[in-house]
């Protein structure tokens, strides 16, 4: 558990973050310039706060009134940076062992081989960082941080410098780390689908202040949070089960609760779970099932929430999992959609994006 109450003033930007983070994995979400990286830097000890306190699992790491400021190298907080920051003069093995070798045997909770296998970087050990691809660099950087057996792992937009294809190759590794290694994480991103792929627990930051902390499905109904999320591109993330592949026709049939969803062909095994992202703006609503339409997915659900943001209306529909559809205010008025109404969510197969291409 992390108790954060930190203030940092720099030029005309000021950050005042006050919150308690209790979930094992928290996605720190907010627009560029909101202060996400600054907050992470304050927690890691890279930047000194002007005032406040920081308590990690009962240990005070910073308190200006008690003049406590545990130095960076003694905090045992791992950081994965956006630009990986591998040491260019050391090969992959020496990079991985840099922090690992500084630990006494009893402080090593994770084995070298365990991490190398988990992240599939065994073949890279003798290479120098400049020989690695962007995705490989981030896997090594993740491994290097994990091997210090940190009490908390901070990930500062680790995928921001990668293209979409590489992102999808790294995301499963992050999920693996989350599932198989019991280390609390704070994952910073301005992409809501990345965060929701890893965790449903988010903290929303804007203009240097924490707007909300909690389950995404709950905090998203806060008008401020919704407005901000909408402006950053509201994505729905669904975890579905693979039923069958149709390679010739280029699609895969999956299941969400009792309904079937056709998605672009993936190579995941039958019965495995695949995560998808669908933009709220790519979901259309209908009051009845439509015949003679090319849209393959017509998912029935109940309207659970209606909220207006500017000229748009965001409608939450429970189709076995709550998803948000974005429509115009006029359409809602004309169709007379109300809370509790039964609607069909129309989603084109091609507007569904599988989030992780390897299982």
């Amino acid at each position, binding site marked *: 558990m992390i108790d954060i109450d930190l203030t940092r003033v720099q030029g005309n930007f000021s950050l005042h973050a006050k919150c308690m983070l209790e979930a094992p994995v928290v996605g720190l979400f907010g627009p560029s310039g909101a202060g996400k990286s600054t907050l992470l830097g304050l927690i890691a000890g890279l930047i000194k706060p002007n005032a406040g306190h920081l308590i990690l699992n009962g240990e005070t790491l910073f308190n200006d009134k008690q003049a406590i400021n545990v130095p960076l190298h003694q905090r045992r907080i791992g*950081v994965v940076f956006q630009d990986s920051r591998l040491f*260019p*003069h050391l090969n992959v093995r020496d990079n991985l062992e*840099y922090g690992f070798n*500084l630990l006494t045997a009893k402080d090593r909770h994770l084995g070298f081989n365990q991490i190398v296998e988990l992240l599939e970087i065994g073949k890279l050990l003798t290479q120098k960082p400049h*020989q690695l691809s962007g995705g490989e660099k981030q896997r090594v950087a993740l491994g290097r941080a994990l091997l210090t057996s940190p009490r908390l792992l901070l990930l500062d937009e680790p995928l921001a410098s990668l293209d979409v294809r590489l992102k999808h190759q790294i995301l499963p590794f992050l999920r693996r780390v989350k599932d198989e290694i019991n280390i609390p994480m704070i994952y910073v991103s301005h992409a809501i689908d990345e965060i929701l792929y890893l965790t449903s627990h988010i903290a929303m930051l804007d203009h240097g202040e924490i707007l909300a902390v909690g389950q995404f499905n709950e905090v998203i109904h806060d008008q401020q949070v919704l407005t901000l999320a909408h402006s950053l591109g509201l994505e729905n993330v669904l975890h579905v089960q693979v039923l069958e592949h149709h390679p010739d026709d280029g699609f895969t049939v999956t299941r969400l609760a009792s309904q079937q969803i056709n998605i672009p062909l993936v190579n995941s095994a039958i019965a495995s779970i695949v995560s998808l992202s669908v933009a709220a703006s790519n979901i259309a609503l209908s009051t009845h099932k439509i015949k003679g339409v090319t849209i393959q997915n017509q998912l029935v659900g109940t309207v659970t929430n209606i909220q207006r943001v500017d000229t748009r209306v965001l409608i939450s529909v429970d189709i076995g999992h709550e998803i948000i559809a974005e429509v115009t205010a006029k359409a809602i008025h004309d169709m007379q959609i109300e809370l509790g109404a039964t609607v069909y969510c129309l989603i084109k197969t091609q507007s569904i994006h599988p989030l992780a291409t390897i299982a």
Partner: protein
Amino acid sequence: MATATIFTLSPAEVEALMLSTKVAVYCTLAICIPGVAVAWLLAKKSFFGKSFLDSLVHLPLVLPPVVPGFLLLLLLGSQGFIGKWLQNTFGISIAFTWIGAVIASAVMAFPLMVRSTRLAISQVDTGLEAAAQSLGAHPIRVFFTVTLPLSMPGIITGLILAFSRSLGEFGATITFVGNIEGETRTLPLAIYTYTQVPGGDIAAMRLVILSMVIALGALMISDLLERKATQRIGRGVLHGKDTA
């Protein structure tokens, strides 16, 4: 003497060569650690009197070499402030010895060493140093395992520049320790001496050629070492260019 040719060095010339090499080697060794320390201070720290220290270090570069030589004589000469004390306390005399020549060279070569190293240290990505600390390394360890290896090409350049400067040092040396054959008569002083005596032109020419060979060699070795060091830190072979 049957095999002696115009290119054969006389014993006095060999002695000048050996002395020059000895002085340059000791000078380079002497300024190695203080040079890196001062360069680190100037590159990384801000403190009261920093610009004064910076100017002081660079002073020998802009002054006529006779001036530092004369100041050294005032300080360390047998009648000098420190020289007298050394003489009375330990019975050590520095003036007019090869050790004095090393000190004169060191003062003149120090700014070159500091400039090159300072530039290299200031170019090391502070993000890498922060990353090393976040992995649990104490700042001192970070200096030796990250900052120093990544500055190595610049440090090597600085050392070679200092070595070459020391080989060529004339003004400060002759002012401080004189021109004593076998003790302080280094290559440049020997060349100067030969040009002052009738018929010494051939000997002077031999030493001029020798000086040029040594200088060229030093520069080529410097280039080679720098390339190797640059490759080692994974930046490719081109100076300062990132091939990754």
